[in-house]
């Protein structure tokens, strides 16, 4: 967060911006359902924070190593929910567990996400010298309410969150009066339908949104495969992870003076010129070698001792890097260079062991050097921090992608936000903590960026519905990085990002504050969605608490008033409707501009919308037809309502399916 907010245009120094116009989110309460909080972290100091908002009805729950005095005007609430977890884990040893049976955070994840969204200013922070700057949340004066429902399981070395505890936390948060609910959690694909209780977050979120709470969810880390996005309910904001314009170049100097800049978070000593090896059979022996990172341990003893090792891997998860480092280290090696596709999940290797990532091209350059000389050597220098151009913005490899596997016509993810190499507060118990701060990557980190931005917007527009906030950030998002360069989406090969990678684009907070028009939604719109999705009248009636009978014929999912048009199975011409509400100057005139997807005709009527004191909302019709003769993939375009100030842009994604319900692998 030492870079995030300057990158997004929310600098403190700019006195006329959303941050300062909203007193940094002072009266907004952000709730986090996660692994708890480390209350002593400087990110939760309440210096300069005013009295607790009057609408707060929550409390501070004491427990193991957590006292009522740990709460303050910043950290105004802390509760924990463990009954479901205990009932499902009867063998769990509460006294022996390293986690705290209280709201205190052991693993650091809850602390990290809370400080990203609403952490107070902490000056001059870095991660062992890297990513230095002033650490703060998106809404530094917003209040934080912690609902711990995720528990560290020592035997598994991981965290588990019982869905019955998550629901209880959501229920309490609705009682307590939070304004924004931030959930950096995910179920596993295949997903369950939204109101099927198996997707608890969606069900609990439905009621939260009905009460005006904005629910922000991580989109999941199962990318870059398609149809892996999580938390796909139309009433939540689902967030994809992008990179910042910051990287950590790590110089690798070869014996032929060729310098290659890899990526690492290496803050150890320089490794002077040292023998360099790529374990392979040079043809003079019948011994088996392996240069694959995951199989370095198969090499004969002595192969790696005292050397820097080059290896290749097809994996993009960081575990491949850390495993390679441990193999080289236990074989007496002094460093490892990993040639891989980008994973955007760099973390330091244990005990500051030098582990540097490069791509296959650079890895091959090094391999050719090794083969060209009898005694190849290499020097590795500590990582540095590079900010701004030429560092470009990408959608992170791991960021889960659309289309929405439950309802492809509902565009997910909704929005992209920085979620790679984010420096924020953590628990000192975390094994990667450096002075109570840590650099992490994941859609877990991207979601609270949106939660912080939404907290600022909520201050500016306290009466907007949750859907209005989603619309505002989607229709004003950057389709490029903040400097006008294309955003690429990392995948099996890098491509220009599209709506299934990052929804409307990269969040642009300043523009979202004044979107001009919004595609608003309320309970009746969600009922249209539920009816169109085939949920039965009785389920919907119970969900919404009133008798509801779906129209016959069922409404089309294409008519759900989303700030996007997504047609996954276009064959004959379709007509769909959208309604926009004027939130700009009372007397406004907008004209439509259509950038149609390739081979798709999009006709909008009327072509002009005139708003005045009597006319605040207007509907328009969109007629879509295809000229393709085959089943195509998705093509993308835009539909823009433009006046002299605003470009209200929604993504248009259309796939032609001449042959429907047909899967081909030809």
């Amino acid at each position, binding site marked *: 967060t030492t870079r995030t907010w300057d990158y997004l245009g929310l600098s403190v120094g700019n006195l006329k911006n959303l941050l300062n116009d909203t007193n940094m989110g002072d009266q907004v309460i952000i709730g986090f359902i*996660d*692994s708890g909080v480390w209350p002593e972290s400087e990110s939760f100091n309440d210096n300069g924070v005013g009295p607790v908002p009057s609408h707060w009805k929550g409390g501070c729950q004491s427990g193991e190593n957590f006292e009522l005095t740990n709460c303050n005007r910043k950290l105004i609430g802390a509760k924990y*929910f463990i*009954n*479901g977890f205990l*009932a*499902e884990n009867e063998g769990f040893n509460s006294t022996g567990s390293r986690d705290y049976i209280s709201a205190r955070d052991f*693993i650091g*994840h809850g602390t990290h996400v809370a400080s990203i969204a609403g952490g107070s200013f902490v000056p001059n922070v870095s991660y062992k010298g890297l990513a230095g700057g002033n650490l703060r949340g998106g809404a530094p004066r917003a209040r934080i309410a912690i609902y711990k429902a*995720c528990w560290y399981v020592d035997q598994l070395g*991981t*965290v*588990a*969150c*019982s*869905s*019955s*505890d*998550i*629901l*209880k936390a*959501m*229920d*309490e*948060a*609705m*009682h307590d009066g939070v304004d924004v609910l931030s959930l*950096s*959690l*995910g*179920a*596993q694909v295949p997903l369950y339908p939204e*109101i*099927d*209780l*198996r997707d*608890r*977050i969606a*069900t*609990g979120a439905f*009621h*939260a949104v009905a*009460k005006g709470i904005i629910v922000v969810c*991580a*989109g*999941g*880390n199962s990318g870059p495969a398609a149809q892996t996005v*999580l938390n796909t309910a139309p009433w939540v904001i689902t967030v994809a992870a992008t990179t910042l314009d910051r990287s950590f170049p790590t110089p690798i100097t070869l014996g032929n003076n060729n310098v290659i800049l890899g990526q690492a978070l290496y803050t150890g000593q320089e490794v002077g010129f040292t023998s360099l090896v790529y374990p392979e059979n040079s043809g003079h022996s019948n011994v088996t070698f392996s240069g694959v990172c995951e199989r370095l341990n198969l090499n004969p003893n002595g192969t790696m001792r005292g050397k820097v090792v080059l290896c290749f891997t097809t994996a993009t998860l960081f575990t491949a890097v850390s495993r390679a480092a441990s193999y080289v280290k236990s074989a007496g090696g002094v460093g490892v260079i990993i040639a891989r596709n980008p994973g955007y999940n760099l973390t330091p290797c244990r005990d500051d062991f030098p582990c540097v990532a490069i791509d296959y091209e650079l890895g091959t350059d090094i391999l050719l050097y090794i083969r060209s000389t009898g005694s190849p050597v290499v020097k590795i220098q500590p990582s540095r921090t590079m900010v701004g151009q030429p560092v470009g913005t990408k959608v992170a490899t791991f960021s889960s992608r659309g289309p929405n596997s439950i309802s492809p016509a509902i565009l997910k993810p909704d929005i992209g936000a920085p979620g790679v190499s984010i420096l924020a507060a953590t628990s000192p118990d975390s094994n990667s903590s450096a002075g109570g701060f840590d650099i992490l990557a*994941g*859609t*877990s980190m991207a*979601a609270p960026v949106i939660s912080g931005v939404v907290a600022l917007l909520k201050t500016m527009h306290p009466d907007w519905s949750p859907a209005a906030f989603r619309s505002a950030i989607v229709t004003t998002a950057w389709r490029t990085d903040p400097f006008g360069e294309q955003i690429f989406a990392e995948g099996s090969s890098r491509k220009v990002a599209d709506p299934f990678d990052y929804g409307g684009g990269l969040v642009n907070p300043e523009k979202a504050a004044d979107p001009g028009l919004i595609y608003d939604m309320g309970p009746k719109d969600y009922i249209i969605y539920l009816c169109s999705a085939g949920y039965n009248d*009785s*389920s919907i*009636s*119970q*969900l*919404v*608490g*009133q008798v509801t009978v779906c129209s016959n014929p069922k409404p089309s999912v294409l008519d759900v008033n989303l700030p996007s048009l997504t047609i996954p199975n276009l064959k004959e011409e379709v007509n769909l409707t959208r309604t926009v509400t004027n939130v700009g100057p009372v007397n406004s005139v907008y004209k439509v501009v259509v950038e149609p997807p390739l081979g798709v005709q999009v006709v909008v009527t009327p072509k002009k919308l005139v708003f005045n004191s009597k006319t605040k909302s207007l509907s328009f019709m969109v007629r879509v037809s295809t000229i393709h003769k085959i089943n195509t993939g998705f093509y993308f375009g835009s539909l823009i309502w433009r006046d002299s100030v605003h470009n209200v842009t929604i993504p248009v994604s259309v796939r032609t399916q001449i042959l429907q319900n047909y899967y081909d692998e030809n």
Partner: protein
Amino acid sequence: SAESKVHIVYLGEKQHDDPKHVTESHHQMLSSLLGSEVEADDSMVHSYRHGFSGFAAKLTESQAKKIADSPDVVHVIPDSFYKLA
């Protein structure tokens, strides 16, 4: 006896504004299903009573099926686990 697991009994929107009343109604549902107040107390894990209505309880498969047939119940689903993203 058949193994009991945590199940979430989802009842949709609240029918009363008083949370205590809502929780009492959950206990009544559970004790009439299980046969006694004591068993209901042992089985109850969470009562959802502010944002919506429902409860989490340790139920056997057959008890879960039985309560799912109640007209007030929208869904009965076994508990599961989410991960940090």
